[in-house]
């Protein structure tokens, strides 16, 4: 994963709430077995029908409950591969938020009026280290889990980090918790 810190430039605005992952990347594009090639299908139906048009700017601003619905990480790949580096919204669905952070794609939660001000300003600067978003005439701070921030800033690979806890995992597996649940390989 690539390290990120400062994301700045023009803002694209998608003025809708409850934007679900079925819209971000419709299911007919989920059949690929690769991680690439999703950018051109971003918001496929809305863009093709001329309902919206979006520039691939560094920052996307949208309404509350962004990324709701399906857990498809393809939604994050599509946003990222289309050209966005960060998405700013008043709230996100949990799984989508987590998927973003696993891909070095920054989800930023700002209050609704701040989102609107950033959208109106047309351009902005996100500073992850200092947890600050600024735009002409305003700025706001945002919260982010310190551990997630550390991983994003360092571009750290989650799996490699967890494998540093290998001894703990082995100890857990040897303890009483290790044999909880079924043995799938012994089913008929």
């Amino acid at each position: 994963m690539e390290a990120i810190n400062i994301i700045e430039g023009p803002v694209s605005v998608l003025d809708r709430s409850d934007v679900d992952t079925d819209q971000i990347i419709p299911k007919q594009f989920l059949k690929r077995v690769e991680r690439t090639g999703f950018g051109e299908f971003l918001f496929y139906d809305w863009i093709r029908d001329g309902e919206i048009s979006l520039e691939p700017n560094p920052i996307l601003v949208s309404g509350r409950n962004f990324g709701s619905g399906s857990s498809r990480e393809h939604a994050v790949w599509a946003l990222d591969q289309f050209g966005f580096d960060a998405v700013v919204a008043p709230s996100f669905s949990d799984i989508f938020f987590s998927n973003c952070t696993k891909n070095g794609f920054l989800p930023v939660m700002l209050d609704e009026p701040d989102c609107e001000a950033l959208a109106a300003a047309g351009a902005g600067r996100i500073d992850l280290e200092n947890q600050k978003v600024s735009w002409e005439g305003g700025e706001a701070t945002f919260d982010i889990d310190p551990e997630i921030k550390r991983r994003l800033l360092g571009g750290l690979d989650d799996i490699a980090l967890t494998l540093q806890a290998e001894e703990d995992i082995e100890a857990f597996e040897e303890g009483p918790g290790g044999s909880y649940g079924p043995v799938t390989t012994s089913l008929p």
Partner: protein
Amino acid sequence: MPKTMFEKIWEAHEVRDELIYIDLHLVHEVTSPQAFEGLRMSGRNLRRPDKTVATADHNVPTDGTPTAKLIADTLSRKQVQTLEQNAAAFGVPVYSLGSETQGIVHVIGPELGLTQPGMTIVCGDSHTSTHGAFGALAFGIGTSEVEHVMATQTLVQRRPKTMRINYTGKLGPGVTSKDLILATIGRLGTGGMSGYVVEYAGEAIRELTMEQRLTVCNMTIEGGGRAGMIAPDETTYEYMRGKPGVPDDFDAAIERWEHLPTDEGATFDYEVEIDATQIAPMVTWGTTPGMVVEVSDRVPDPSRMDQPAERESAERALQYMGLKAGTPMEEIRPERVFIGSCTNSRISDLREAAAAIKGRKVADSIRAMVVPGSAMVKSQAEEEGLDIIFQDAGFEWRGAGCSMCLGMNPDILIEGERCASTSNRNFEGRQGKGGRTHLVSPTMATAAAIEGHFVDIRNWN
């Protein structure tokens, strides 16, 4: 100190602070190929194939295609075959097209006895919340996390907040667990459970059968919840007894499970009370599951909503759905009926739907289909003759899979078609581009199929 069921399960699975051990990893063809590929690229093994199981569900045709290599759609064929190859290469048991135990991942877990109380269960699918009905902590993850679980059998997780929804009283006649959860989401909103693990409790929940409980937990994600849970009890144990995956010493297991329910006096971050006696059969009118009203109501009028954002969403939704404010819900006429999906495709759902038919026929204006959630549900239904009842009435009887729940396979709505669906999402285009979805219970869907419009099943027989 008294603890919630969630806290007990969480603490029993902490390998380190915020690193939790996963007891069961369910895998399907859509969200796994990139994860398997990631393992290969980094030269890692799949750590515990014995805690992993794979099935093909999203992409599979439901027309009786017997094996993956005969799937007509090239990309779907490749995805299902890739799953089979990956599972073989990493030693994971796989139930693909043609297997007797193939089916929707959230249907086969419980029916094989893989889903058990006290477990942590994940899957690259948001409706993993379904499995929480057994008193498990079960939630959906993304593909990067799928790879993480494959490599480490653990997951890095912030501890979520807890919510309890207490239902007082019992559901009335004709009112199902689908209506209970739709009404709850309508009340709390699609983000109302956001960030929470939700425990459903109270008299109305205890009265539900196991399969009805699965329907409730299934739609937790539609309320934005991370996971839904219901305390295990006799109903749970009776349902599990004799299933292939359950512990050999079942009675000893029950003794362990009996410690799971939330202790008296344990506190939740948020508690809500809902009067179950007031819940009516529900129908969605819009493009989120929270846009829902009682079947005896009318399509809401956006101009009467005070929040501008809510008004705009409602206007958009009505336009998309081709509906006028004020129209009685019972006057809405679907052209399609879909009984299926991980919300409502289990044997009891099909029994209820079949029982409601009573020799009547599907209306001429309607194309209706029944899609069992798994190959096992299908054969059980056929043993009971339900397939004949459905077909005699004019329903199509299909093979197991996700089918028209998400239209990733040949079962889709065409532009503008309106569907009464027992699935869980009514998003724009979910069942096919331009398709219009109304979420309902299986009996409500059956009644709509026969009458050609929605009816209040409380006064329909």
